[in-house]
């Protein structure tokens, strides 16, 4: 019976190997893949997904799920665009946007803890409502033309590095520290691992659940800020299906939908894996329909390997 989980048998390490393998494949098949420009591009494209997936990691650690993230990003994006066009100063728009993210999280937390609704259902409802409101407010049209100070967060550069990437990495760092080194982080794992035991151990489980959904809401707000700036436009159909990519990244990264298991590092590797696959398939001119299929197949394989490894061996 081997009890110590060494670095090399951790879920994160296996996904990391998968990332290297997929990367090596594209490096051999496409001359462009390994260029500095392309690698930075992958990082940039992964940053929005990454920010959302970080929020999703918090939620999934508590055995919850947040299906609303894509729609909430789109709604936040349109709301910011409308405020900017109404002449609200950029700093106020960003602040209100973050408050909006918090409000979405509080709404989810309240519905789940106080009313006792299932996270899947609550966030499914929000997903539809937020997308609907996005269409209503934008009248189904794309909104352009924002002040440069606003677009800086999505399109700006510091030296060779995009501001978006910096935001993503800083956010990941903060998330990692919270999960790894704080009592709150420990409690998040506890709530996901065993809700009843958590409450009897003195953990205020309702606050923990509020917190993770608020983190997910804030993540959507930040992602919306970066996305809108980068595109220079707020599109009512933006971020469609992002919830599935975010969930996939978290699960590929070794988290369990049953809660209590997962890390930020794992999620980031999961996000990068999906980003590399998307990028590589574009470079190789894989037709879009096949891209979707192949991405699904890789997700399946990655999670399958982990599941096989963690299959309970009876003793």
């Amino acid at each position, binding site marked *: 019976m081997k009890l110590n989980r060494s670095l090399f048998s951790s879920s994160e390490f296996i996904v990391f190997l998968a990332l290297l393998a997929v990367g090596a494949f594209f490096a051999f098949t496409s001359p462009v893949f390994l260029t500095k420009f392309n690698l930075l591009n992958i990082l940039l494209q992964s940053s929005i997904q990454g920010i959302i997936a970080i929020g999703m990691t918090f939620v999934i650690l508590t055995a919850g799920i947040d299906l609303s993230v894509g729609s909430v990003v789109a709604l936040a994006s349109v709301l910011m665009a409308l405020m900017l066009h109404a002449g609200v100063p950029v700093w106020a728009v960003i602040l209100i946007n973050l408050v909006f993210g918090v409000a979405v999280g509080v709404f989810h937390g309240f519905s789940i803890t106080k009313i006792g609704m299932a996270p899947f259902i609550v966030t499914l409802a929000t997903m539809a409502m937020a997308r609907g409101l996005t269409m209503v407010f934008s009248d189904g049209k794309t909104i352009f033309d924002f002040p440069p100070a606003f677009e800086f967060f999505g399109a700006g550069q510091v030296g060779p590095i995009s501001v978006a990437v910096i935001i993503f990495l800083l956010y990941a760092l903060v998330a990692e520290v919270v999960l790894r080194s704080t009592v709150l982080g420990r409690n998040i794992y506890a709530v996901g691992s065993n809700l*009843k035991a958590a409450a009897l151990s003195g953990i205020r489980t309702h606050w923990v659940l509020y917190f993770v959904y608020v983190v997910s809401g804030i993540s959507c707000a930040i992602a919306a800020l970066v996305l809108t700036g980068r595109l220079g436009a707020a599109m009512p159909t933006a971020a469609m299906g992002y919830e599935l990519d975010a969930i996939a990244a978290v699960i590929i990264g070794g988290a369990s939908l049953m809660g209590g298991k997962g890390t930020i590092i794992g999620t980031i590797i999961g996000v990068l894996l999906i980003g590399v696959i998307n990028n590589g398939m574009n470079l190789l001119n894989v037709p879009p329909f096949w891209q979707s299929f192949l991405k699904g197949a890789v997700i399946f394989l990655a999670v399958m390997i982990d599941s096989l490894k963690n299959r309970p061996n009876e003793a």
Partner: protein
Amino acid sequence: MNPDPVLETLNLTKVFPGVIALDDVSLSLRPGEVLGLVGENGAGKSTLMKLIGGVYPPTRGSIRYRGEAVQFRSPKDALDAGISIVYQELNLISHLSVAENIFINRLPRRRGFVDWARLYREAERILAESGMAGIDPRAIVAELPIGVKQSVEIAKALSYDAQVLLFDEPTSSLTGPEIENLFAVIRRLQERGMGIIYVSHHLDEIFEITDRVHILRDGRTVVEMPTAEASEELVVSRMVGRDIQDIYYKGAHEPGEVVLTTRGLSDSVLQNVDFSVRSAEVVGIYGLLGSGRTELLKAIVGARRLRSGEVLLRGRSVRFQHPQDAARAGVIYSSEDRKGENLFFGQPIWKNETYIALQIGRFATLGFTRVAEERRAAAEYSEKLGVKAPSLDTDVDHLSGGNQQKVCLAKALINDPDVILLDEPTRGIDVGAKLEIYKLIAQLADQGKAVVFVSSELPEVIGCADRVYTMAGGRITAELTGDAINEENVLKYCLQTTPSGGTAT
């Protein structure tokens, strides 16, 4: 002379990576015989059962069934041959009917559709044959009491024309009358010539129901003897591998002042409960399942919503709203349900032990954990309580029941609480670990702690407690002290549902 054995194992050995779970075990079971299988956790009982039941193949040795060597590739092979296991956790599907559960996977069919009439007829026949005619095959399993569910599980096993039945801790969640009922069923099966292997931690059951007792320790057979020639002490000492003096260690404490009191505590289960515990005292609470004993402890720490009544700590009303409030005040509850309500599976020992402490601000600065300190404290308490594990980083999933319980206790004690509410701390753990826990309880009282100890095992309540409350139907039915703490009294009061109002000394 004795008939030929229906089941034999010859030098059965099972090796798991790094562990010899079963080492050269030979036993034989004759038709119409009940063989008791006892041993501490990890002694190899479950492995033996699983080898016989076809869950996995032996590394060495063989199994002979009705005189022929057999190799079961799956539990289904064993079932089809006529060997059924009734597991500790019932494997019933709660929202289906009794009949559907009995014939699950083999529902009788007519033209592709389920033949309901035949299903219920067959189920009725099987239930009647095993003396359970009172069970309605149409009843939904979820609505049945646990004892009846177990009967259904047995009927399911019998429906495979079983010749051999293995019982794995069948009574762990049954009440007294339900156990009697189970024994009646077992005796009837015995008369019908079935071979039965009975695994249990409860030695009184072994002595009541078995013909022979087979003792395992560390995967090996220690001894096998006719039950009539064995004594409880002998069996225990062989299981543990040492002599047992003083099973119940009373300690040397004199109860001091009253620390915690409840007045008129009522909620959806509890009815007007007045209860108190003193410093340096062990208070036992005895009651059957559903008597309100667990609810009382949970209500005290604020894990249940009260309808009325109050909790006083050293004379001051406290009314905890959440177990965290109770922990801050030095009152800690440790749940009986280790897996469901106490431990965090998939997490290492040290993290499990410090959770309560973290909530009240220990081992943390501005919300950041001080891991080195945590680990030091966890190491200290694991050592104090004798947690046996490869390291502090071992996940609690890999520990035996007794060691898991010690981790639960370390988690409760690491804050040095004044009042410790232990809910069935000895449930489902082996004898050796039980003895250590009795001793610990006495030591805590010696240190001046107020200890409340809920148990459904009569001897340990009588043996450990300075004072005993009996509970039934959400009420306290008696408070016993001194010589009044005896088996007769405790049983009498825990079966009555109206309060005697009396105190016996």
